[in-house]
Protein backbone atom coordinates (compact mmCIF):
# COMPACT_ATOMS: atom_id res chain seq x y z
CA UNK A 1 0.00 0.00 0.00
CA UNK A 2 2.75 2.34 1.00
CA UNK A 3 4.62 1.50 -2.17
CA UNK A 4 1.53 2.21 -4.16
CA UNK A 5 1.13 5.65 -2.62
CA UNK A 6 4.78 6.39 -3.19
CA UNK A 7 4.45 5.19 -6.74
CA UNK A 8 1.45 7.41 -7.35
CA UNK A 9 3.20 10.32 -5.75
CA UNK A 10 6.24 9.79 -7.95
CA UNK A 11 4.01 9.49 -10.99
CA UNK A 12 2.11 12.62 -10.08
CA UNK A 13 5.38 14.42 -9.51
CA UNK A 14 6.89 13.36 -12.80
CA UNK A 15 3.66 14.14 -14.60
CA UNK A 16 3.72 17.54 -12.97
CA UNK A 17 7.28 18.06 -14.10
CA UNK A 18 6.39 16.94 -17.58
CA UNK A 19 3.64 19.53 -17.66
CA UNK A 20 5.76 22.22 -16.15
CA UNK A 21 8.44 21.82 -18.81
CA UNK A 22 5.94 22.57 -21.51
CA UNK A 23 5.78 26.28 -20.79
CA UNK A 24 6.41 27.87 -24.13
CA UNK A 25 7.37 31.53 -24.14
CA UNK A 26 5.99 33.43 -27.10
CA UNK A 27 7.84 36.61 -28.04
CA UNK A 28 5.98 39.45 -29.73
CA UNK A 29 6.46 43.15 -30.37
CA UNK A 30 3.22 44.50 -28.92
CA UNK A 31 3.18 47.55 -31.18
CA UNK A 32 1.60 46.39 -34.43
CA UNK A 33 -2.18 46.55 -34.24
CA UNK A 34 -4.25 44.67 -35.22
CA UNK A 35 -1.68 41.84 -35.26
CA UNK A 36 -0.31 42.41 -31.79
CA UNK A 37 -0.59 45.33 -29.42
CA UNK A 38 -0.75 46.12 -25.73
CA UNK A 39 -4.38 46.71 -24.83
CA UNK A 40 -5.59 49.19 -22.23
CA UNK A 41 -5.19 46.63 -19.46
CA UNK A 42 -1.52 46.36 -20.30
CA UNK A 43 -1.87 42.87 -21.79
CA UNK A 44 -0.85 41.56 -25.19
CA UNK A 45 -3.92 41.53 -27.44
CA UNK A 46 -4.82 41.25 -31.10
CA UNK A 47 -4.99 38.74 -33.92
CA UNK A 48 -1.81 36.96 -32.91
CA UNK A 49 -2.76 36.84 -29.23
CA UNK A 50 -5.95 35.01 -30.03
CA UNK A 51 -4.25 32.85 -32.63
CA UNK A 52 -1.34 31.99 -30.35
CA UNK A 53 -3.60 31.05 -27.44
CA UNK A 54 -5.67 28.83 -29.72
CA UNK A 55 -2.56 27.17 -31.19
CA UNK A 56 -1.22 26.49 -27.70
CA UNK A 57 -4.55 24.98 -26.66
CA UNK A 58 -4.54 22.72 -29.73
CA UNK A 59 -0.92 21.68 -29.21
CA UNK A 60 -1.66 21.18 -25.48
CA UNK A 61 1.07 23.54 -24.39
CA UNK A 62 1.10 26.18 -21.69
CA UNK A 63 2.12 29.45 -23.23
CA UNK A 64 3.31 32.74 -21.85
CA UNK A 65 3.54 36.07 -23.66
CA UNK A 66 6.67 38.19 -23.68
CA UNK A 67 7.17 41.53 -25.41
CA UNK A 68 10.45 42.49 -26.98
CA UNK A 69 11.78 45.31 -29.11
CA UNK A 70 11.59 44.55 -32.84
CA UNK A 71 15.29 45.29 -33.34
CA UNK A 72 16.45 42.59 -30.96
CA UNK A 73 13.60 40.13 -31.48
CA UNK A 74 15.61 37.57 -33.49
CA UNK A 75 18.83 37.75 -31.40
CA UNK A 76 16.82 37.12 -28.24
CA UNK A 77 15.10 34.12 -29.83
CA UNK A 78 18.31 32.42 -30.93
CA UNK A 79 19.94 33.03 -27.56
CA UNK A 80 16.99 31.31 -25.91
CA UNK A 81 15.18 34.09 -24.04
CA UNK A 82 11.88 32.90 -25.49
CA UNK A 83 10.92 29.97 -27.67
CA UNK A 84 8.99 31.43 -30.58
CA UNK A 85 8.36 34.70 -32.39
CA UNK A 86 4.76 35.48 -33.29
CA UNK A 87 4.96 39.12 -34.27
CA UNK A 88 3.61 39.70 -37.75
CA UNK A 89 6.93 38.50 -39.16
CA UNK A 90 6.82 37.78 -42.88
CA UNK A 91 8.58 34.69 -44.12
CA UNK A 92 11.61 35.74 -46.16
CA UNK A 93 14.68 33.82 -47.35
CA UNK A 94 17.02 36.15 -45.40
CA UNK A 95 15.29 35.48 -42.10
CA UNK A 96 14.99 31.80 -42.93
CA UNK A 97 18.77 31.54 -42.83
CA UNK A 98 18.78 32.42 -39.13
CA UNK A 99 15.49 31.02 -37.85
CA UNK A 100 12.98 28.40 -39.00
CA UNK A 101 9.43 29.35 -39.90
CA UNK A 102 6.21 27.41 -39.61
CA UNK A 103 3.85 27.41 -42.57
CA UNK A 104 2.25 30.81 -42.98
CA UNK A 105 -0.81 31.65 -40.91
CA UNK A 106 -1.83 34.55 -43.12
CA UNK A 107 -1.74 34.30 -46.91
CA UNK A 108 0.87 36.49 -48.61
CA UNK A 109 -0.83 39.79 -47.90
CA UNK A 110 -0.39 43.04 -49.78
CA UNK A 111 1.67 45.95 -48.55
CA UNK A 112 0.50 49.45 -49.34
CA UNK A 113 1.52 53.09 -49.32
CA UNK A 114 -0.47 55.59 -47.30
CA UNK A 115 -0.05 59.37 -47.49
CA UNK A 116 -1.79 62.62 -46.63
CA UNK A 117 -2.97 63.14 -50.22
CA UNK A 118 -3.53 61.07 -53.36
CA UNK A 119 -0.78 62.78 -55.32
CA UNK A 120 2.07 61.95 -52.96
CA UNK A 121 5.26 60.99 -54.75
CA UNK A 122 5.84 57.36 -53.82
CA UNK A 123 8.50 56.73 -56.41
CA UNK A 124 10.97 59.53 -55.80
CA UNK A 125 9.82 60.90 -52.46
CA UNK A 126 10.69 60.10 -48.86
CA UNK A 127 9.02 56.90 -47.65
CA UNK A 128 8.80 55.89 -44.00
CA UNK A 129 9.05 52.22 -43.03
CA UNK A 130 9.96 50.21 -39.96
CA UNK A 131 13.58 49.10 -39.69
CA UNK A 132 14.27 45.53 -40.65
CA UNK A 133 10.97 44.90 -42.43
CA UNK A 134 10.30 43.64 -45.94
CA UNK A 135 8.72 47.00 -46.70
CA UNK A 136 11.95 48.81 -45.82
CA UNK A 137 13.81 46.53 -48.24
CA UNK A 138 11.23 47.20 -50.91
CA UNK A 139 11.49 50.98 -50.57
CA UNK A 140 15.24 50.76 -51.10
CA UNK A 141 14.65 48.70 -54.24
CA UNK A 142 12.22 51.23 -55.73
CA UNK A 143 14.78 54.01 -55.53
CA UNK A 144 12.74 56.20 -53.19
CA UNK A 145 14.43 57.68 -50.13
CA UNK A 146 13.93 55.40 -47.15
CA UNK A 147 13.30 56.91 -43.74
CA UNK A 148 13.52 54.19 -41.10
CA UNK A 149 11.83 54.12 -37.70
CA UNK A 150 12.18 51.60 -34.89
CA UNK A 151 8.44 51.06 -34.43
CA UNK A 152 5.35 51.10 -36.67
CA UNK A 153 3.60 53.96 -34.89
CA UNK A 154 6.47 56.35 -35.60
CA UNK A 155 6.26 55.63 -39.33
CA UNK A 156 2.65 56.85 -39.43
CA UNK A 157 3.46 59.85 -37.24
CA UNK A 158 6.25 60.81 -39.65
CA UNK A 159 3.74 61.13 -42.49
CA UNK A 160 1.35 63.18 -40.36
CA UNK A 161 3.99 65.70 -39.38
CA UNK A 162 5.37 65.97 -42.91
CA UNK A 163 8.70 64.29 -42.31
CA UNK A 164 7.90 61.66 -44.92
CA UNK A 165 5.76 61.78 -48.06
CA UNK A 166 4.22 58.36 -47.45
CA UNK A 167 4.45 55.32 -45.21
CA UNK A 168 4.80 51.78 -46.44
CA UNK A 169 3.57 48.90 -44.31
CA UNK A 170 1.33 45.83 -44.31
CA UNK A 171 -2.06 46.86 -45.66
CA UNK A 172 -3.77 45.21 -42.69
CA UNK A 173 -1.87 47.50 -40.34
CA UNK A 174 -2.61 50.64 -42.39
CA UNK A 175 -6.29 49.87 -43.05
CA UNK A 176 -7.65 51.02 -39.65
CA UNK A 177 -5.28 54.02 -39.73
CA UNK A 178 -6.63 55.11 -43.12
CA UNK A 179 -10.22 54.35 -42.19
CA UNK A 180 -10.26 56.44 -39.03
CA UNK A 181 -7.64 59.05 -39.76
CA UNK A 182 -6.67 61.59 -42.36
CA UNK A 183 -4.45 59.32 -44.46
CA UNK A 184 -5.34 57.81 -47.83
CA UNK A 185 -3.96 54.83 -49.71
CA UNK A 186 -1.77 55.79 -52.65
CA UNK A 187 -0.97 53.65 -55.66
CA UNK A 188 -1.37 49.93 -56.13
CA UNK A 189 -1.07 47.30 -53.43
CA UNK A 190 2.20 45.45 -53.60
CA UNK A 191 2.42 41.79 -52.67
CA UNK A 192 5.54 41.22 -50.56
CA UNK A 193 6.87 38.21 -48.67
CA UNK A 194 5.47 34.74 -48.31
CA UNK A 195 2.88 35.45 -45.65
CA UNK A 196 3.36 35.64 -41.91
CA UNK A 197 4.66 32.69 -39.94
CA UNK A 198 5.91 31.85 -36.47
CA UNK A 199 9.67 31.73 -36.12
CA UNK A 200 11.59 29.14 -34.08
CA UNK A 201 15.21 28.36 -33.36
CA UNK A 202 16.66 26.10 -36.05
CA UNK A 203 17.63 23.67 -33.31
CA UNK A 204 14.03 23.35 -32.16
CA UNK A 205 12.25 21.41 -34.94
CA UNK A 206 10.06 19.51 -32.47
CA UNK A 207 8.29 22.61 -31.13
CA UNK A 208 8.02 24.06 -34.60
CA UNK A 209 6.37 20.80 -35.73
CA UNK A 210 3.75 21.06 -33.00
CA UNK A 211 2.76 24.58 -33.94
CA UNK A 212 2.93 23.79 -37.62
CA UNK A 213 0.45 20.93 -37.12
CA UNK A 214 -1.81 23.16 -35.01
CA UNK A 215 -1.83 25.84 -37.73
CA UNK A 216 -2.75 23.15 -40.26
CA UNK A 217 -5.75 22.04 -38.17
CA UNK A 218 -6.91 25.66 -37.91
CA UNK A 219 -6.62 26.05 -41.66
CA UNK A 220 -8.53 22.81 -42.21
CA UNK A 221 -11.52 23.59 -40.02
CA UNK A 222 -11.79 27.21 -41.11
CA UNK A 223 -11.20 28.78 -37.69
CA UNK A 224 -8.11 30.58 -38.99
CA UNK A 225 -10.20 32.32 -41.66
CA UNK A 226 -12.71 33.39 -38.99
CA UNK A 227 -9.88 34.94 -36.99
CA UNK A 228 -8.54 36.74 -40.05
CA UNK A 229 -11.98 38.22 -40.78
CA UNK A 230 -12.46 39.17 -37.14
CA UNK A 231 -9.14 41.00 -36.71
CA UNK A 232 -7.83 41.89 -40.14
CA UNK A 233 -11.14 42.65 -41.83
CA UNK A 234 -13.23 41.31 -44.70
CA UNK A 235 -10.84 42.58 -47.34
CA UNK A 236 -7.79 40.75 -46.05
CA UNK A 237 -6.92 37.67 -48.12
CA UNK A 238 -8.02 34.35 -46.62
CA UNK A 239 -7.04 30.74 -47.12
Amino acid sequence: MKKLILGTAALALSAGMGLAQDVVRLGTEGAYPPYNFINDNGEVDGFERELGDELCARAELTCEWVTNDWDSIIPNLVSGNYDAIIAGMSITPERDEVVDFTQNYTPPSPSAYAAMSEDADIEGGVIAAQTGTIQANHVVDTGATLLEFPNPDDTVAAVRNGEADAVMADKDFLAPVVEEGDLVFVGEDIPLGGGIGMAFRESDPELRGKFDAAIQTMKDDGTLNELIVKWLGEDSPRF
Partner: protein
Amino acid sequence: MFASCADPSTLEGLNWLACYLTSGKHMAFYASFGTVMVLLAVTAPAALLFGFGGAMAARSRIWPVQWLGRAYTAMVRGVPDIIFFLFVPVALDQAFEWLRHKAKCPDWTEPIRQGSDFVVCTQAKLPLSTSPQWVHETYGFALAVLAFAVVFGAFAANVLYGAMRAVPRAQMETAEAYGMTPRQSFWRILVPQMWVYALPGLSNLWMILIKATPLLFLLGVEDIVYWARELGGSKTSIYAYPHPDWRLYYFLALLVFYLGLTKLSEMVLGRLTVRLSHGQATLAGEAQRKAGG
Protein backbone atom coordinates in the same frame (compact mmCIF):
# COMPACT_ATOMS: atom_id res chain seq x y z
CA MET B 1 -10.34 50.72 -11.78
CA PHE B 2 -13.75 52.37 -11.24
CA ALA B 3 -16.93 50.37 -11.86
CA SER B 4 -18.16 53.07 -14.24
CA CYS B 5 -15.20 52.39 -16.53
CA ALA B 6 -16.57 49.04 -17.71
CA ASP B 7 -17.63 50.43 -21.08
CA PRO B 8 -15.33 53.31 -22.11
CA SER B 9 -17.17 54.02 -25.37
CA THR B 10 -20.14 55.48 -23.44
CA LEU B 11 -18.01 57.88 -21.41
CA GLU B 12 -17.41 61.56 -22.09
CA GLY B 13 -15.25 64.43 -20.90
CA LEU B 14 -13.74 64.21 -17.46
CA ASN B 15 -15.18 60.77 -16.75
CA TRP B 16 -13.50 59.45 -19.86
CA LEU B 17 -10.22 61.06 -18.83
CA ALA B 18 -10.44 59.68 -15.29
CA CYS B 19 -11.03 56.17 -16.61
CA TYR B 20 -8.36 56.62 -19.27
CA LEU B 21 -5.73 57.73 -16.79
CA THR B 22 -6.47 54.78 -14.48
CA SER B 23 -6.47 52.04 -17.13
CA GLY B 24 -4.22 49.02 -16.57
CA LYS B 25 -1.75 50.34 -19.09
CA HIS B 26 -1.46 53.65 -17.27
CA MET B 27 -0.89 51.81 -14.00
CA ALA B 28 2.02 50.04 -15.68
CA PHE B 29 3.26 53.46 -16.81
CA TYR B 30 3.12 54.83 -13.25
CA ALA B 31 4.82 51.70 -11.93
CA SER B 32 7.64 52.15 -14.44
CA PHE B 33 8.64 55.38 -12.65
CA GLY B 34 9.36 53.11 -9.70
CA THR B 35 11.35 50.77 -11.95
CA VAL B 36 13.50 53.67 -13.11
CA MET B 37 14.11 54.93 -9.57
CA VAL B 38 15.03 51.43 -8.36
CA LEU B 39 17.34 51.02 -11.31
CA LEU B 40 19.09 54.30 -10.53
CA ALA B 41 19.31 53.51 -6.82
CA VAL B 42 20.92 50.13 -7.49
CA THR B 43 23.04 51.05 -10.50
CA ALA B 44 24.70 54.18 -9.11
CA PRO B 45 26.47 52.44 -6.19
CA ALA B 46 27.23 49.40 -8.36
CA ALA B 47 28.81 51.60 -11.05
CA LEU B 48 30.78 53.46 -8.40
CA LEU B 49 32.08 50.14 -7.14
CA PHE B 50 33.13 49.10 -10.65
CA GLY B 51 34.72 52.51 -11.11
CA PHE B 52 36.62 52.32 -7.86
CA GLY B 53 37.86 48.86 -8.73
CA GLY B 54 38.88 50.01 -12.20
CA ALA B 55 40.71 53.07 -10.87
CA MET B 56 42.54 51.03 -8.25
CA ALA B 57 43.52 48.46 -10.87
CA ALA B 58 44.75 51.18 -13.24
CA ARG B 59 46.97 52.56 -10.42
CA SER B 60 48.27 49.16 -9.43
CA ARG B 61 52.01 48.49 -9.47
CA ILE B 62 51.43 44.92 -10.62
CA TRP B 63 51.44 45.32 -14.40
CA PRO B 64 48.84 42.67 -15.41
CA VAL B 65 46.33 44.27 -13.00
CA GLN B 66 47.21 47.73 -14.26
CA TRP B 67 46.88 46.53 -17.83
CA LEU B 68 43.47 45.02 -17.02
CA GLY B 69 42.21 48.24 -15.42
CA ARG B 70 43.35 50.35 -18.33
CA ALA B 71 41.97 47.96 -20.94
CA TYR B 72 38.60 47.96 -19.16
CA THR B 73 38.23 51.74 -19.16
CA ALA B 74 39.59 52.19 -22.67
CA MET B 75 37.47 49.46 -24.25
CA VAL B 76 34.15 50.21 -22.59
CA ARG B 77 34.49 53.95 -23.09
CA GLY B 78 35.21 53.42 -26.75
CA VAL B 79 32.25 51.16 -27.60
CA PRO B 80 28.86 52.81 -28.27
CA ASP B 81 26.35 52.15 -25.50
CA ILE B 82 23.72 50.67 -27.78
CA ILE B 83 26.11 48.04 -29.12
CA PHE B 84 27.21 47.35 -25.60
CA PHE B 85 23.64 46.83 -24.52
CA LEU B 86 22.87 44.45 -27.32
CA PHE B 87 26.03 42.49 -26.65
CA VAL B 88 26.90 42.44 -22.94
CA PRO B 89 23.63 41.18 -21.43
CA VAL B 90 23.25 38.49 -24.09
CA ALA B 91 26.89 37.47 -23.64
CA LEU B 92 26.60 37.49 -19.84
CA ASP B 93 23.40 35.47 -19.99
CA GLN B 94 25.04 32.93 -22.27
CA ALA B 95 28.13 32.76 -20.08
CA PHE B 96 26.01 32.00 -16.99
CA GLU B 97 23.98 29.41 -18.87
CA TRP B 98 27.12 27.81 -20.23
CA LEU B 99 28.60 27.46 -16.73
CA ARG B 100 25.37 25.98 -15.38
CA HIS B 101 25.19 23.69 -18.38
CA LYS B 102 28.70 22.36 -17.71
CA ALA B 103 27.83 21.77 -14.05
CA LYS B 104 24.34 20.32 -14.42
CA CYS B 105 24.37 18.37 -17.67
CA PRO B 106 27.78 16.69 -17.96
CA ASP B 107 26.46 13.95 -20.25
CA TRP B 108 24.95 16.27 -22.85
CA THR B 109 26.45 15.34 -26.21
CA GLU B 110 24.98 17.87 -28.63
CA PRO B 111 26.96 21.00 -29.40
CA ILE B 112 25.91 24.18 -27.58
CA ARG B 113 26.39 26.36 -30.63
CA GLN B 114 24.27 25.15 -33.50
CA GLY B 115 24.57 27.66 -36.28
CA SER B 116 23.40 30.91 -34.74
CA ASP B 117 21.49 29.10 -31.98
CA PHE B 118 22.65 28.83 -28.42
CA VAL B 119 21.29 25.61 -26.95
CA VAL B 120 21.79 24.44 -23.37
CA CYS B 121 19.89 21.71 -21.53
CA THR B 122 16.55 22.63 -19.96
CA GLN B 123 17.89 22.50 -16.40
CA ALA B 124 20.63 24.99 -17.20
CA LYS B 125 18.29 27.63 -18.59
CA LEU B 126 18.46 30.88 -16.69
CA PRO B 127 15.83 31.54 -15.53
CA LEU B 128 14.18 28.13 -16.01
CA SER B 129 11.52 28.36 -18.68
CA THR B 130 9.07 27.11 -16.07
CA SER B 131 9.68 30.13 -13.82
CA PRO B 132 6.88 32.66 -13.58
CA GLN B 133 7.11 35.85 -15.60
CA TRP B 134 8.28 38.02 -12.70
CA VAL B 135 11.42 35.88 -12.30
CA HIS B 136 12.23 36.49 -15.95
CA GLU B 137 11.64 40.18 -15.51
CA THR B 138 13.77 40.40 -12.38
CA TYR B 139 16.53 38.49 -14.11
CA GLY B 140 16.36 40.83 -17.11
CA PHE B 141 16.46 43.77 -14.73
CA ALA B 142 19.50 42.35 -12.91
CA LEU B 143 21.31 41.88 -16.23
CA ALA B 144 20.44 45.46 -17.11
CA VAL B 145 21.85 46.73 -13.82
CA LEU B 146 25.03 44.75 -14.41
CA ALA B 147 25.40 46.10 -17.94
CA PHE B 148 24.79 49.67 -16.77
CA ALA B 149 27.28 49.19 -13.94
CA VAL B 150 29.94 47.93 -16.33
CA VAL B 151 29.43 50.79 -18.79
CA PHE B 152 29.14 53.61 -16.28
CA GLY B 153 31.79 51.99 -14.09
CA ALA B 154 34.33 52.49 -16.87
CA PHE B 155 33.57 56.21 -17.05
CA ALA B 156 33.58 56.45 -13.26
CA ALA B 157 36.94 54.63 -13.20
CA ASN B 158 38.42 57.30 -15.40
CA VAL B 159 36.98 60.09 -13.26
CA LEU B 160 38.21 58.49 -10.03
CA TYR B 161 41.62 57.75 -11.53
CA GLY B 162 41.97 61.43 -12.35
CA ALA B 163 40.68 62.44 -8.91
CA MET B 164 43.22 60.20 -7.18
CA ARG B 165 46.02 61.90 -9.08
CA ALA B 166 44.59 65.34 -8.27
CA VAL B 167 45.09 64.96 -4.52
CA PRO B 168 48.11 67.16 -3.72
CA ARG B 169 51.31 65.15 -3.67
CA ALA B 170 52.32 66.96 -0.47
CA GLN B 171 49.49 65.22 1.39
CA MET B 172 50.83 61.82 0.43
CA GLU B 173 54.41 62.79 1.24
CA THR B 174 53.33 63.89 4.69
CA ALA B 175 51.56 60.56 5.19
CA GLU B 176 54.73 58.74 4.17
CA ALA B 177 56.78 60.93 6.53
CA TYR B 178 54.51 59.85 9.38
CA GLY B 179 55.46 56.28 8.54
CA MET B 180 52.22 55.10 6.96
CA THR B 181 52.44 52.15 4.58
CA PRO B 182 51.25 52.77 0.98
CA ARG B 183 48.07 50.91 1.84
CA GLN B 184 47.40 53.05 4.91
CA SER B 185 48.10 56.31 3.14
CA PHE B 186 45.85 55.25 0.26
CA TRP B 187 42.86 54.51 2.47
CA ARG B 188 43.40 57.19 5.13
CA ILE B 189 44.69 60.14 3.10
CA LEU B 190 44.02 59.65 -0.59
CA VAL B 191 40.51 58.16 -0.64
CA PRO B 192 38.89 60.63 1.78
CA GLN B 193 40.37 63.57 -0.10
CA MET B 194 39.78 62.49 -3.68
CA TRP B 195 35.96 62.73 -3.64
CA VAL B 196 35.87 66.50 -3.91
CA TYR B 197 37.92 66.25 -7.11
CA ALA B 198 35.78 63.41 -8.42
CA LEU B 199 32.42 65.00 -7.70
CA PRO B 200 32.01 67.19 -10.82
CA GLY B 201 32.81 64.26 -13.09
CA LEU B 202 30.65 61.84 -11.12
CA SER B 203 27.71 64.25 -11.08
CA ASN B 204 27.90 64.45 -14.88
CA LEU B 205 27.79 60.69 -15.06
CA TRP B 206 24.82 60.59 -12.73
CA MET B 207 22.89 63.02 -14.91
CA ILE B 208 23.66 60.96 -18.01
CA LEU B 209 22.66 57.76 -16.22
CA ILE B 210 19.26 59.23 -15.33
CA LYS B 211 18.53 59.72 -18.99
CA ALA B 212 19.98 56.44 -20.23
CA THR B 213 17.12 54.22 -19.06
CA PRO B 214 15.38 53.90 -22.48
CA LEU B 215 18.22 51.53 -23.37
CA LEU B 216 16.48 49.11 -21.03
CA PHE B 217 13.83 48.15 -23.55
CA LEU B 218 16.51 46.50 -25.66
CA LEU B 219 16.51 43.96 -22.83
CA GLY B 220 12.72 43.82 -22.57
CA VAL B 221 12.55 46.01 -19.45
CA GLU B 222 9.86 48.63 -19.95
CA ASP B 223 10.84 52.10 -18.70
CA ILE B 224 8.95 55.41 -18.63
CA VAL B 225 9.99 56.47 -22.11
CA TYR B 226 8.78 53.19 -23.58
CA TRP B 227 5.38 53.60 -21.92
CA ALA B 228 5.08 57.28 -22.84
CA ARG B 229 5.71 56.41 -26.46
CA GLU B 230 3.39 53.43 -26.33
CA LEU B 231 0.55 55.31 -24.59
CA GLY B 232 0.95 58.52 -26.54
CA GLY B 233 0.95 56.98 -30.02
CA SER B 234 -2.29 57.49 -31.92
CA LYS B 235 -4.85 54.81 -31.15
CA THR B 236 -7.47 53.50 -33.55
CA SER B 237 -10.80 52.17 -32.30
CA ILE B 238 -9.28 48.71 -31.80
CA TYR B 239 -8.27 50.11 -28.42
CA ALA B 240 -10.79 50.85 -25.68
CA TYR B 241 -9.67 54.49 -25.51
CA PRO B 242 -9.03 55.71 -29.06
CA HIS B 243 -7.22 59.04 -29.37
CA PRO B 244 -4.95 60.92 -31.82
CA ASP B 245 -1.20 61.31 -31.40
CA TRP B 246 -0.74 62.48 -27.80
CA ARG B 247 2.95 61.81 -27.46
CA LEU B 248 3.63 65.51 -26.98
CA TYR B 249 1.68 65.54 -23.69
CA TYR B 250 3.28 62.36 -22.43
CA PHE B 251 6.74 63.61 -23.26
CA LEU B 252 5.93 66.94 -21.59
CA ALA B 253 5.07 64.99 -18.44
CA LEU B 254 8.41 63.21 -18.73
CA LEU B 255 10.13 66.56 -19.21
CA VAL B 256 8.68 67.77 -15.93
CA PHE B 257 9.75 64.56 -14.23
CA TYR B 258 13.30 64.76 -15.56
CA LEU B 259 13.65 68.44 -14.74
CA GLY B 260 12.43 67.75 -11.21
CA LEU B 261 14.92 64.93 -10.85
CA THR B 262 17.68 67.18 -12.16
CA LYS B 263 16.82 69.92 -9.69
CA LEU B 264 16.75 67.43 -6.83
CA SER B 265 20.09 65.96 -7.92
CA GLU B 266 21.66 69.41 -8.13
CA MET B 267 20.49 70.27 -4.61
CA VAL B 268 21.89 67.03 -3.19
CA LEU B 269 25.14 67.35 -5.13
CA GLY B 270 25.52 70.96 -4.04
CA ARG B 271 25.25 70.00 -0.39
CA LEU B 272 27.64 67.13 -0.94
CA THR B 273 30.21 69.49 -2.45
CA VAL B 274 30.01 71.79 0.56
CA ARG B 275 30.37 68.85 2.93
CA LEU B 276 33.29 67.33 1.02
CA SER B 277 35.16 70.65 0.64
CA HIS B 278 35.29 71.00 4.39
CA GLY B 279 38.94 71.21 5.50
CA GLN B 280 40.27 70.51 2.00
CA ALA B 281 43.27 72.21 0.45
CA THR B 282 41.10 73.54 -2.37
CA LEU B 283 39.69 76.97 -3.16
CA ALA B 284 36.27 76.01 -1.81
CA GLY B 285 37.81 74.52 1.32
CA GLU B 286 39.94 77.61 1.85
CA ALA B 287 36.90 79.89 1.47
CA GLN B 288 35.06 77.84 4.08
CA ARG B 289 38.01 78.12 6.46
CA LYS B 290 38.19 81.91 6.06
CA ALA B 291 34.45 82.21 6.62
CA GLY B 292 35.07 80.43 9.92
CA GLY B 293 33.14 77.31 8.88
